[in-house]
């Protein structure tokens, strides 16, 4: 690809179209050294995999070298929905439960803690913020160990110790991870405990960004604290709330370490979500076609969920 730096446009063509092309090429040559690697990396490791995923989802794919990987039409999708154990349907159900339970709790805790910490008389705001943020900087694996430990079965797991031994709320110690609902509750608590700090930090930043002048003006007009909160704070937090909610929904939609490290999908694949099911099917059972079909369905679902909102918030910067 060489670009003539000087010279006339090719005769016979619209001269303006020629110079436009030349200008475009020149612009590309200037920017290419900067974006080439990034664009190439994204093309190879993000965009091509998405296409490849769709292809594999229509194949009976084998990891063995030299396998001919025949195309099987929609077989993988059909088997995902006709499987007698209903793994995929169960995973979809769990995903909706995860969103329905954790998003409201997470959001409410985040805004309440942030507003309270931000009150003018509270001292050591930074200390509180740091403590609330601690779970975020801890790795999922370690927090999972911790939760498995706290919710261990038998009477000496701390939660059992408190609820059964000390308070006598149950007639016997609970095996949290071997029953569906109790395992789900542990997964939800794990997720909420681990991520609430993110919402708190985002809301604190947003609250501190509201100019004091609004409150001073309101105070002169005789509005008290409660009035100020509802007529200044709440409306000013609108866009941030949208941002926080989108991220919370997305996070709850994509439970993966939450499930994988706590229950590994058990008992009997009942607590699986789509990502954990996909990963285990691919790399434990080597069902690549089936796993890709799950991945494609998940990709479409998440995409549909976020597309409209992300468009609105795509250009905003947040920490």
């Amino acid at each position, binding site marked *: 690809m060489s670009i003539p730096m000087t010279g006339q446009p090719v005769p016979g063509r619209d001269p303006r179209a020629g110079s436009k092309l030349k200008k*475009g090429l020149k*612009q*590309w040559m*200037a*920017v290419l050294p*900067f*974006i080439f*690697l*990034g664009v190439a990396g*994204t093309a*190879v*490791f*993000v*965009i*091509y*995999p*998405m296409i490849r*995923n769709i292809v*594999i989802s229509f194949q009976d794919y084998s990891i063995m070298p030299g396998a001919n990987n025949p195309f099987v039409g929609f077989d993988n999708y059909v088997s995902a929905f006709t499987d007698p154990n209903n793994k995929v349907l169960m995973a979809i159900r769990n995903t909706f439960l995860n969103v329905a339970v954790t998003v409201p709790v997470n959001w409410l805790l985040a805004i*309440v*803690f942030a507003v*309270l910490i931000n*009150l*003018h*008389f*509270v001292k050591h705001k930074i200390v*509180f913020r740091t*403590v609330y943020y601690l*779970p975020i*900087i*801890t*790795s*999922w*694996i*370690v927090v999972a*160990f911790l*939760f498995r*430990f*706290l919710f261990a079965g038998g009477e*000496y797991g*701390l939660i059992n*110790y408190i609820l059964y031994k000390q308070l006598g709320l149950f007639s016997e110690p609970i095996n949290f991870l071997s029953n569906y609902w109790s395992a789900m509750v542990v997964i939800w608590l794990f997720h909420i*405990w681990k991520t609430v*700090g993110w919402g708190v930090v985002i809301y604190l*930043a947003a609250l501190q960004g509201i100019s004091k002048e609004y409150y001073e003006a309101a105070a002169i007009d005789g509005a008290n*604290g409660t009035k100020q909160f509802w007529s200044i704070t709440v409306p000013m937090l609108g866009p941030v709330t949208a941002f926080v909610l989108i991220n919370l929904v997305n996070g709850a939609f*994509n439970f993966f*370490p939450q499930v994988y490290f706590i229950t590994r999908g058990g008992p009997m694949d009942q607590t699986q979500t789509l*990502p954990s099911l*996909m990963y285990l099917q691919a*790399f434990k059972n080597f069902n690549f076609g089936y*796993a890709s079909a799950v991945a494609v369905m998940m*990709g479409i679902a*998440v*995409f549909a969920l976020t597309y409209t909102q*992300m468009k609105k918030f*795509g*250009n905003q*910067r947040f*920490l």
Partner: protein
Amino acid sequence: MKTKWPIQLLVYAIIALGALSFLFPFVYMILTSFIKGAYSLPRPKEVFSVVPDLYNYKLVWSKNNFARYFLNSSVVTLVAMTGSLFLGCLTAYGFARFTFPGKEFLFRTFLLTMMIPGVINIIPQFLIVKSLGLVDTYGGLWLIYIGGGVVGSAFFLRGFFQSIPKEYEESVLIDGGGNWRIFWNIYLPQSMPAIATLAIFSFQGTWEEYFTALVIIKDEAMRTLPIALLMFNDKYATNYSWIFAASIIALLPTVLLYILFQKRFVQSGFNEGGVKG
């Protein structure tokens, strides 16, 4: 404006309760890591009366090649982080400062990929690395970490790059410098807080990464820390004092980084008053 003391007390009680519920599990974990020879689930009474002792830390450090895995993770993370930052900065600069045909299209495509969770790409990424013959090498891992992460970091940095006033470039242009000089002498130093923030995110993301590393690295000697931790957990399932001692060692680098950089974290209004008169 004075708030009545019962309200103040109530507010403090609520946020202190919140803080306690975040802190207490950590405290319980640290205390458990001091218990000697816990082959069964330690009783809460034992945990609360334990005497601090680094015995388990010394033990796990020399056990099961733990020190080796720590080193592996350091190498993987430092290279991946440096590569991601460098590529992210370059790409962000390209998108922030240049106009070229198809830029809008390219940027929108980038944005679209951000809406699809990265985890679903793990199967094809593995197949690509396999066809390159890079399974069981850090090269394969770095390609996925860096190539797969560039969109996120470029997107994060682009906003900061765009807010750097054009006036800054004039001094370089007057000296006869070009795009690279502007990149090195203006954009990078001006965006240091943003780059530092991204560096920490990148560090934490790679340091903790489990799923891709498990798929790409099969050789036991090359495992990274998260894999080693989980294997350690499977092997000594009930020995929580060892598991937590190992976990706390694994957490230290990230925690230290956050403490060191806490003040320099990007907040809003980071570039106020850059151009004077």
